[in-house]
């Protein structure tokens, strides 16, 4: 039970407002995607990040453009936080030429290597191995770039997690593992799928430094990631951050959301909305006024509206290009 939320005293107002803006952008984009899905304009799958925005925002705040992110099937938030323009994310889900994968990919195949988004994935697991491989490159090339892998609690029980974290550990690779523990893999509770729901303890068992944080508290995520990115970039080997969080929408749009979790549980987590929490904290601490925060919200809304319009008015890809890029040519 939270009584009163306070913004991190150690963070300056600019940082806090930028985190607020970042989370809000993701939220507004996801809300736009939900509406587009309901209108039938998104032809394929759409897993939203609503409720988990603090994690991508708090982690990516510490990344440079040349750092890389390997994401999941629930990757819109990671893409936006890493710098993919909203119109390219929305455009991709609409299957348009201007999407970040030129309409080839859709939600689970977002790519924007220009800004370090190395892909979302339709298969659970490979991102863990690929991010570790990117870290191997950086080590071989003697670069101080950081590789980040986002993954869910469901992925923790896949062999890829164990193989990746073990290799990262034995070779001191510069990879940051960010587990977004939202307690369910589709409808399977994490507590059913494992006898040890403590992901940090698993990291420790592989000799990897780690900490867990409240994934709905953007300041906590920001602070933990500051330490984690510092550790990884400083050449001290891999690091794991476990963020405890919750998705407040169904696993994917169009799916039912009953029978595996209670309405009560969902409402309780909605009370802990990361965006509302930061807003309240900023307000309680008299760091920002209602007007300031509302002005930010209006600007974000306008940007996302414009991005949606741009995306909706862009062309579909030319069918004759269906086979381009199979090879490097």
């Amino acid at each position, binding site marked *: 039970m939270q009584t009163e939320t306070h913004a991190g005293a150690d963070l300056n107002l600019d940082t806090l407002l930028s985190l607020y803006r970042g989370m809000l952008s993701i939220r507004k984009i996801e809300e736009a995607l939900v509406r587009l899905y309901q209108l039938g304009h998104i032809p394929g799958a759409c897993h939203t990040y609503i409720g988990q925005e603090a994690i991508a925002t708090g982690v990516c705040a510490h990344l440079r453009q040349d750092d890389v992110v390997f994401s999941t099937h629930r990757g819109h938030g990671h893409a936006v936080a890493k710098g993919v323009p909203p119109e390219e994310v929305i455009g991709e889900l609409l299957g348009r030429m201007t999407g970040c994968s030129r309409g080839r*990919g*859709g939600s689970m*195949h977002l790519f924007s290597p220009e800004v370090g988004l190395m892909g979302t994935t339709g298969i659970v697991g490979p991102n863990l191995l690929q991010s570790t491989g990117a870290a191997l490159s950086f080590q071989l090339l003697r670069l101080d770039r950081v590789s980040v892998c986002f993954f869910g609690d469901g992925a923790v029980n896949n062999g890829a997690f164990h193989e990746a974290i073990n290799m990262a550990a034995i070779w001191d690779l510069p990879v940051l593992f960010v587990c977004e523990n939202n307690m369910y893999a*589709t409808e399977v509770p994490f507590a059913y799928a494992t006898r040890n729901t403590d992901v940090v303890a698993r990291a420790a068992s592989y000799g990897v430094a780690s900490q867990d944080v409240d994934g709905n508290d953007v300041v906590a995520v920001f602070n933990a990631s500051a330490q984690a990115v510092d550790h990884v970039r400083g050449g001290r080997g891999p690091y794991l951050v476990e963020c405890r969080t919750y998705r407040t929408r169904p696993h994917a749009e169009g799916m039912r959301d009953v029978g595996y979790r209670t309405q009560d549980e969902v409402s309780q987590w909605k009370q802990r909305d990361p965006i509302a929490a930061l807003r309240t904290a900023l307000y309680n601490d008299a760091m920002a006024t209602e007007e300031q925060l509302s002005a930010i919200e209006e600007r974000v809304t306008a940007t996302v509206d414009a991005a949606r319009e741009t995306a909706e008015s862009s062309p579909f890809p030319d*069918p004759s290009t*269906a086979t381009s890029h199979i090879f490097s040519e």
Partner: protein
Amino acid sequence: MREITYTEAAREGLDEEMARDSSVFVVGEGIGKRGGNFNTTLGLFDKYGPQRLRDTPIAERGFIGMCTGAAMTGTRPVVDFMFFDFILDATGEMINQIAKMQYMSSGRLKMPIVLRGCVGVGGSSATHHSGNYYSFYSHVPGWRVVLPTTPRDAKGLLKSAIRSDDPVLFLEHKLLLNTRGEVPDPDVDELIPFGKASVRREGTDVTAVAFGMMVNRTLEAAETLAQDGIRVEVIDPRSVAPLDMETILESLAKTGRMVIVDEDYGPAGMGAEIAALVADRAFDELDAPVRRVNGVHTPIPYSPPLEAAVVPNRDTIIGAIRDLVAE
């Protein structure tokens, strides 16, 4: 006969086999209380409980490997992948272990395992959820690979798969799952054998061998062509391995012309295999070269116009058959 959906029919088959043989069990993600992402096990959890409908962690390589061991020791696992693409994480288990176990043990071990899931292009499922790959699976000795097209075949072939002592890949095209068709009453214990094609439409001008969803597309094409007096015989092999060449060659003896319509890739695919067998065994029956209509040899794109461009449709099939008749 009553009409039910493909998924309902297959589920009925599974239910009957689970009732008949207590060594049959199902594993997969969300196949317990939830009843399966595609309702493949809906209602069965209440009937058979968590021991026999076992929800797994996301550990495909792990649970296939485990089920291999289970199949070696007296039980009959049915592994439900929802999307069959997810099996690829366990290619080593499939090819090096399951397919070879009977051979390696000189026939002293059996391998009664069914691996099932949906395949195929449709609904902007994109590149990680649209795979077919059955030509590739059938390349490996040791597998039975079945690809039912109608609800009746789905039920009868799944029952055969579960009773088989050989490993079976049971592949369900995602666009067929909700199609309806006639299925015998529940008390009729109909088993459809592997390696027995079904002649879905009779004709005397062209033999069209079609797989999975392409059977339906080819039947539509045949209907249109009939209006111009072109009579197409449509053959659904139903299983890719073993392949019923007898039925295919019988038809060719009647028509002299053959097209193979397959959503799966052309290179080293089913069409190439059938054409080679025809050249070998029935060269003199051919009045024209064998034609192939295949999905485009590319990863499957998401955007609807791109996706539509990589799958054969009614018009491409009609065009190919008209060309073939004109030869």
